[in-house]
């Protein structure tokens, strides 16, 4: 089953920057895909289109068979609840504790309190931050903050997880930990798309690699490596 499908998708920003040009791509349910390419090649744009943070200029995007380009504005929250998004810049709320930051993602979608009390500690154990539950983001290291943002993206067990450079600015050992986590999440059936610049991670994982350059797909390999 196709989880994500891009059909002739182009994105031109208001200032006429063509960030994506005529993209055609399908990602199957349960796949793990690396998006690679130089800075400015369109990776983040690709991911933002999937949660409708921005809209396509031309073309269509299908998620689980549904065309999201003609989705009503009132249906957008529903779409986002099914997609976990690990932001390039974490986007943790500084005045909320680790627990609250994650609980917040569940409150937002109307989960009752007793569910939150069970699910948040569970996901914190998964990312190894159970003991930091009551810390504030500024009391955490970069890697720990990154893991909080993964926990928040995953706490709702969404069928799709999008990660925008989840290992940027993190040392190799911590990066390995995060990749193990994402692999585990992928193993339980979650479709994962991850944008990255990290050559060694891509090379060691041997997953599907889609390479972008100036908004075009120039390579799509089954068990690829970072670059040729």
């Amino acid at each position, binding site marked *: 089953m196709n989880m994500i499908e891009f059909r002739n998708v182009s994105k031109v920003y208001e200032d006429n920057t063509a960030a994506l040009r005529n993209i055609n791509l399908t990602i199957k349910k349960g796949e793990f895909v690396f998006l690679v390419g130089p800075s400015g090649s369109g990776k983040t744009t690709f991911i933002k289109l999937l*949660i409708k*943070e921005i809209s396509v200029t031309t073309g269509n995007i299908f998620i689980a068979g549904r065309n999201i380009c003609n989705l009503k504005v*009132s249906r957008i*929250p*529903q*779409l*986002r*609840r099914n997609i976990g*998004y690990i*932001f390039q810049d974490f*986007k943790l*709320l500084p*005045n909320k504790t680790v627990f609250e930051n994650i609980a*917040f*993602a569940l*409150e*937002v*979608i*109307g989960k*009752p*309190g007793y569910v939150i009390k069970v699910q948040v500690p569970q996901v914190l154990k998964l990312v190894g931050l159970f003991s930091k539950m009551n810390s504030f983001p500024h009391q955490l290291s970069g890697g720990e903050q990154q893991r909080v943002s993964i926990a*928040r993206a995953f706490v709702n067990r969404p069928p799709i997880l999008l990660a925008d450079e989840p290992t940027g600015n993190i040392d190799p050992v911590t990066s390995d930990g995060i990749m193990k986590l994402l692999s585990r999440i992928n193993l339980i059936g979650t479709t994962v798309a991850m944008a990255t610049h990290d050559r060694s991670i891509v090379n060691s994982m041997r997953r599907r690699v889609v390479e972008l350059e100036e908004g075009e797909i120039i390579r799509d390999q089954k068990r690829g490596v970072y670059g040729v």
Partner: protein
Amino acid sequence: MIFRPKYFFGETFSNLKRNFLMFFTAITTVAITLFMVGFFLVIVYDIQGILGSIKSQVEVAVYLKDNITDELRVYLENEIKSWDEISEVKYISKEQALENFKGEYEGSDILKEIQGNPLPASFELRLESPEKVDLVALRFIDKDGNYIEGVDDVIYGQSYVQKLFSIVAIVGTIAFLIIAVLLLATVVLIFNTIRLSIHARRKEIEVMKLVGATNWFVRIPFLFEGFFEGFVGSLISVIFLFILSNYFLIKGERAVVDTMHIKDLAIVGSNNVILYIYLGLVAVGGLIGIISSAFALKRYLEV
């Protein structure tokens, strides 16, 4: 979406605590502006009340010559009744006049000095439109400036009545203009304060929206906040207004009323209308808070 009062109130109050200065500014703004609006409303209302009392007391007394014939008297009465400005004509005969006089001065020495009946018969006129009292009086005067036949004298109000009417009209207009401007200023100020408070939390709103919050979920705590600010602010203004009108205005107005000899005056703070002004202010405060928040939020929800 399930309504989650605990979450929404929790959010609202933690926001208020976090942005206490902003919150304080908003409340003070509402309190001051609504206080001024309320103050003017009370003043205008009171002036209306005083004016009403004065108006109802404006009457014209037309004293008749003792030698007037019954024919002429009846003719005059019918003529006066046909004028548009007149609402009521009452004939007081000489005997009736003496009777009234005795009633008013019962037990007083003045009665002993009265020989026979020196009081004239008269018509008492009540006016439909008291502003036209001059016009009515003029009708009893002929081309040469004398009173028409059968009329001895025409007496009406005091000379300040006319001036008062025009002053009150001007004051009323100015006060309403000021109220309109103040209300507008209140809206703009609350709108801005809430926009600032929203702006300070735009990151939070963005994240909320990106993890799948509906617009209403984001909106509700801010609407509560706006309502709370408007409500508390207006409550404070009402308290100050209450104190001011009860301890200062009433005394001032009593003094005015006493010097002007106005009876049956509705005085500040002593009736329902003032209560409605207070309730109105609180409602307006809360409403302005909510509406300003809703408008201020609009731009930030487009994620």
